[in-house]
């Protein structure tokens, strides 16, 4: 569990990013502590996936920086960044499996590429990882034959092949049914709590977020509007609207309501000018 005395595993410092003239992240700062599970939430287009891509070094900020395990990734040469990447795993939305390889070969790939382990040891490790995600019996199956949930679990087995210290999850429950979602959430929680893996999850699935989070962060229009322990968000979700615009925006998002500041903002942006400008 997080405590204020520990050095952050992930530190985002005053990060801003624009694509052409659209500002996507605005002065975002966030610290994630050892073995904690941080869930980053927000509506579509709020910047949460962009933030994740900065954390894994696949995007570079216009200003600010990201530190992983104490290293500023802006300062790292490609080779150093690749070395750092071996310490973290990523589960992408799609599972990102290679379709030409069996499930077992997919899981073995990082072990073959990045270690000198002998083949027997690799085969044992592959079976261990697949057992961990409940897919050992699918070791020889091709990804095309798997359901969405199984692909996700196979992707997770591959992501944890090298026993990462940090796991990043991009929308892990997207497109999954509620039971499969709960299974994936349990796997995420087991890795975090039993093995002490520092965990960053980007999602807009509220049920998942509340199941797995220690702390939560909400992004809105590129701003980090609230970072707090899960309990604070639970209290906010069950409280009545207060008239405080920022809190009521978060509350509407947490409750998934169609009426509130979020939707009012969408429907009030220049509609009159826009429609009259046609003539």
């Amino acid at each position, binding site marked *: 569990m997080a405590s204020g005395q520990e050095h952050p595993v992930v530190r985002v410092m005053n990060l801003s990013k624009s694509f052409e003239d659209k500002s996507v992240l605005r002065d975002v700062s966030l610290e994630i502590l050892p073995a904690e599970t941080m869930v980053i939430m927000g509506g579509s287009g709020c910047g949460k996936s962009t933030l994740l891509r900065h954390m894994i070094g696949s995007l570079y900020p216009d200003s600010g920086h990201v530190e992983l395990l104490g290293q500023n990734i802006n300062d790292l040469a490609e080779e150093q960044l690749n070395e750092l990447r071996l310490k973290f795993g990523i589960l992408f939305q799609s599972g990102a499996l290679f379709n030409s390889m069996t499930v077992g070969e997919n899981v073995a790939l990082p072990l073959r590429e*990045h270690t*000198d382990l002998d083949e027997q*040891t690799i085969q044992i490790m592959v079976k*261990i990882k697949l057992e961990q995600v409940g897919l050992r019996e699918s070791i020889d199956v091709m990804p095309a034959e798997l359901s969405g949930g199984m692909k996700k679990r196979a992707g997770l087995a591959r992501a944890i092949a*090298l*026993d990462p210290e940090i796991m990043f999850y991009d929308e892990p429950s997207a497109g999954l049914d509620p039971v499969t979602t709960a299974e994936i959430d349990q796997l995420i929680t087991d890795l975090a709590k039993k*093995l002490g893996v520092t965990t960053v999850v980007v999602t807009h699935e509220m049920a998942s977020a509340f199941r797995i989070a220690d702390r939560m962060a909400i992004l809105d229009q590129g701003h980090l509007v609230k970072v707090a322990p899960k309990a604070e968000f639970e209290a906010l979700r069950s409280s009545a609207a207060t008239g405080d615009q920022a809190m009521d925006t978060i509350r509407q998002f947490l409750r998934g309501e169609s009426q509130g500041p979020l939707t009012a903002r969408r429907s009030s942006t220049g509609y009159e000018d826009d429609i009259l400008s046609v003539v």
Partner: protein
Amino acid sequence: MPATDKTNHRKGQPVTDTTNPIRGIEWAGEDHRVAVVEAQGDIDLRRSSRFQEELLALPDEHPREIVLDLSNVPYMDSSGVASLVKLLARLRRDKVPLKLTGLRPRVRSVFEITRLDTIFDIRATVKEALES
């Protein structure tokens, strides 16, 4: 310059910890054929090769049982666990029991999450293992 070790498993990584992952072996039992093996330090990608090499040499000593004390192993990753699976497979062929003892909570969690706690004979202490 830090010492490097050819047993490193992560390609291109220098290894500074050259401590033998096996601290020592004592022979117990009335016939002195029970090998009580004490492991030490983290057993991870950097050290699991040496660990495995030392463990797989044990059957050549013809023990009638092996007790592996992990009480001085703070962390073990899946390459370390895989090394133990290899040892177990070899010993089962020879019908030699293997008992693991003194697992710290973090190491025990690795066995639990991989469900290997159902395959290995895990005991609390060396004393309990020797008396069982």
